[in-house]
């Protein structure tokens, strides 16, 4: 049996490195697109201010991009390093999207990003714009393949267990590719990236306007960010990735957990707006309940039922018992691959094989588990309800806030062309919010999937490598120190670049003067609102 402490440590390390990696990803996804828009404006109008605007945001993009790439290598290697049995067990399916991501997307963005920074004087305007576009395309395609891989972990379609090789193997690649969970996740995640970049651009530009600096650049950037942000913020919420939550028992469990719904209610189910989930007593304390809403949102119908946590636990109990039969059949087939009877039992029960492995937390041989152990293992299929419940509420709350913020931004900037100071201040202080929402989204998606690493197929603790706790602690300390140092450097360089502003020369003054639009548009000191050109 795998070492449970090593499994927990490896989970912490994965969470740490993945969440750190995802600090850089959303901005890369969104800012690359905004650069395409801004440079597009430069190519079409030929106005120097658009070029300067593109280059300025490009500098910030570069500082961010480099850490995304650097921390991405860890992600690609960590499956093999810490999750060796996982890699063996599902590599036949899971490895493909990762490899395709490299071939189709990562090569594209990484090869061309050099030209994006160094090619301004070497390429024609349209050619450079094409390069910027391809970098954005590569980044976004990269997200697509990673989310196809992640979507398969949540909803493992198109594959089945092969007792000859003791692993999952692909049976229908198209199903893996067009997995509805993956599609929903892709749209949701990419839109969240666009929102992140829009908030970033809007916030920093607002700061410039408040400080009366670089107004030409700042106002144009704000106009781009406001409309792009409004569309993206709507898309994130409307196309949330809840749409896949009705597909499997475990996705249903995740939905029930994030709504802290212990029992199945008659359709359409009510929504608990807020409360304190009590995992021990199986109830939600201090709940404020709104009737009908959840059923409508989750099933998009009046009569669709949303299943509760405890009925789903009962389903899991049955599946564990079925899984024990599958497990025994696999053992028999291991002894004798030609055992016809075992093959038949296996064919009938194979979809529940993973459930038997839940018992391995308590017994070495699942066949020996007693009733009490089976009940305990079934209860393990409930994720941390409070964590799912609250991370969902904060994430969704921030999502709705952004719709409101961008609607107001769009109204002030694009329609009224007059922005009050209070809004600029608000936009500036909103900068950290999209990152908080994105990280909460991952916490919900990945802890809500527990105890599975592959939903219904492989429990997380089974996937771990045969390492010692000391080894994992050593790398965890190493990553923390390295990543911590880099975070400090990155943020200080970002702040420095923003303070220096566009056209700034850190290096000896060279070709093309810098900082020409600094303080060039005189505005009376501290007006209540700031006028945008009609």
């Amino acid at each position, binding site marked *: 049996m795998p070492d449970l402490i090593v499994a927990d440590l490896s989970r912490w390390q994965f969470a740490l490195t993945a969440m750190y990696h995802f600090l850089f990803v959303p901005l890369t996804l969104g800012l690359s697109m905004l650069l395409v828009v801004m440079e597009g404006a430069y190519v079409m109008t030929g106005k120097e201010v658009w070029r300067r605007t593109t280059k300025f945001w490009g500098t910030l993009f570069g500082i961010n991009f480099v850490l995304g790439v650097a921390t991405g290598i860890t992600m690609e290697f960590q499956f093999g390093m810490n999750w060796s*049995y996982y890699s063996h067990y599902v590599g036949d399916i899971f490895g493909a999207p990762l490899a395709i991501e490299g071939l189709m997307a990562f090569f594209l963005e990484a090869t061309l990003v050099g030209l994006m920074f160094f090619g301004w004087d070497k390429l024609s305007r349209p050619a450079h714009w094409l390069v910027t576009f391809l970098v954005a395309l590569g980044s976004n395609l990269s997200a697509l393949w990673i989310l196809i891989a992640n979507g398969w972990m949540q909803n493992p379609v198109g594959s089945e267990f092969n007792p000859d090789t003791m692993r999952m193997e692909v049976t229908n690649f198209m199903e893996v590719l067009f997995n509805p969970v993956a599609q929903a996740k892709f749209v949701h995640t990419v839109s969240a990236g666009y929102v992140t970049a829009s908030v970033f651009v809007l916030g920093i530009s607002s700061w410039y306007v408040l400080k009366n600096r670089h107004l030409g650049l700042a106002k144009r950037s704000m106009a781009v960010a406001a409309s792009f942000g409004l569309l993206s913020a709507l898309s994130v919420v409307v196309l949330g990735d809840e749409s896949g939550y009705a597909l499997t028992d475990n996705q249903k469990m995740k939905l029930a957990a994030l709504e802290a719904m212990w029992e199945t209610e008659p359709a359409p189910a009510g929504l608990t707006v807020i409360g304190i989930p009590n995992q021990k007593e199986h109830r939600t304390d201090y709940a404020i309940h709104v009737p009908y809403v959840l059923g409508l949102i989750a099933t998009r119908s009046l009569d669709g039922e949303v299943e509760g946590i405890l009925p789903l636990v009962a389903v899991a109990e049955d599946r564990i018992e079925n899984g024990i039969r599958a497990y025994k059949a696999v053992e028999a087939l291991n002894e004798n691959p030609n055992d016809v009877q075992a093959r038949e039992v296996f064919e009938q029960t194979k979809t529940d094989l993973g459930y038997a492995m839940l018992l391995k937390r308590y017994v070495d041989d699942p066949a020996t588990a007693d009733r009490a152990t089976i009940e305990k293992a079934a209860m393990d299929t409930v994720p941390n309800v409070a964590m799912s419940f609250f991370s969902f509420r904060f994430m969704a709350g921030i999502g709705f806030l952004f719709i409101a913020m961008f609607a107001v931004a769009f109204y002030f900037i694009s329609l009224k062309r007059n922005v009050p100071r209070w809004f600029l201040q608000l936009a500036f202080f909103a900068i950290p919010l999209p990152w908080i929402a994105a990280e909460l989204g991952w916490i919900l998606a990945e802890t809500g999937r527990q105890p599975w690493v592959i939903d219904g197929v492989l429990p997380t603790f089974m996937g771990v490598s045969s390492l010692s706790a000391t080894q994992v602690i050593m790398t965890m300390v190493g990553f923390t120190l390295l990543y911590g140092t880099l975070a400090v450097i990155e943020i200080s360089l970002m702040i420095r670049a923003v303070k220096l502003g566009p056209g700034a020369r850190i290096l000896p003054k060279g070709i093309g003067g810098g900082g020409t639009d600094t303080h060039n548009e005189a505005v009376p000191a501290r007006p209540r609102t700031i006028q945008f050109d009609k």
Partner: protein
Amino acid sequence: MELPLDYATLKVLWWGLVGVLLIGYALTDGYDLGVASLLPFVAKTDKERRLVINSIGPMWEGHQVWLITGGGALFAAWPYVYAISFSGFYLAMFVVLAALILRPVGFKYRSKRESATWRTSWDWALFVGGFVPALIFGVALGNVLQGVPFNIDSTLRATYSGGLLGLLNPFALLCGLASVAMLVVHGASWLVVKIEHGPVMNRAARFGQIAALLVIAFYALAGVWLAMAGMGYRIVTEMDPQGVANPLRKEVVVEAGAWLSNYGKYPWMILAPLLGFVGSAMAFVGLKNKTPLSLIGSGLAATGIVASVGTSMFPFILPSSINPNASLTVWDSSSSHLTLFIMLIVTVIFVPLILAYTAWVYKVLWGRLTTEEANSASTY
């Protein structure tokens, strides 16, 4: 569904394709690692350093993807190999990761501040980011050639019983030094082709010539060691190349000299080690005369040397020193037939595209880099 290529053919193709990705990495990022290893020694002043850094600045990011895609392809096509080698070499992998993380950050952040301490620190970070991976990649291959201490149980869960220090045995260290020398030659050759004539190029050429001689010496020594110390494994049971991917259904013996027996069986394979020697000699001449022959030579040498590890061991990929029967071979450690086929189609479509746009980027950036250009504002 009947696939147009049989399982055995796909396994051999994928053995070759992972080789192609690794060689692609050695050819491209290999010179970045070499240049970074040379940085503190060939470039003394800040201007010289920026010349050296910017000679690889716009391209290294794309080059590095060969390694990342190599990892991904190993995961997709050889999941056992990916799972067992990456977890087995756990701490060594971490050191490589840390070094590879330092490198991009070093490139991007080094010239963002004027302070000399700041810049020198990043220069050493870049050196570590080049030298350490070059060394560890060689050490890892040296260990693979000897066999790695892992076992596999009936559920195909692998356990590894070696540590970081076990990796640092004399033969593996020799391979590590050979790898560093090889990539230093490649890096020096790149500098000879890419940067303006001057003191930096002269120093690079001098270091490169010494390294080329060392490559020849180390590589020959490793070959002799391989023959004399009796490293090698052989499958003794009949194996079905079309068989299922389960590494526990064969018997393997340790056999002295087995790693050299392929060259008798398939004489064309001698081409690989031959390229290793001839390429290094060409690089030496090219570096001496400062001609592009250097880069052609170092490229051929890297190709030959990496390929020769594969050809010596075929059909073995990762032999087990404590339970040879559990060794991973081409015939029993791949993905399923369908996955290999799908991944082949993807590769056939995308690798030519990758080569095409990489060639275009090279064309745009063509020409010798001058100190003046390297120190202009739009560079690192």
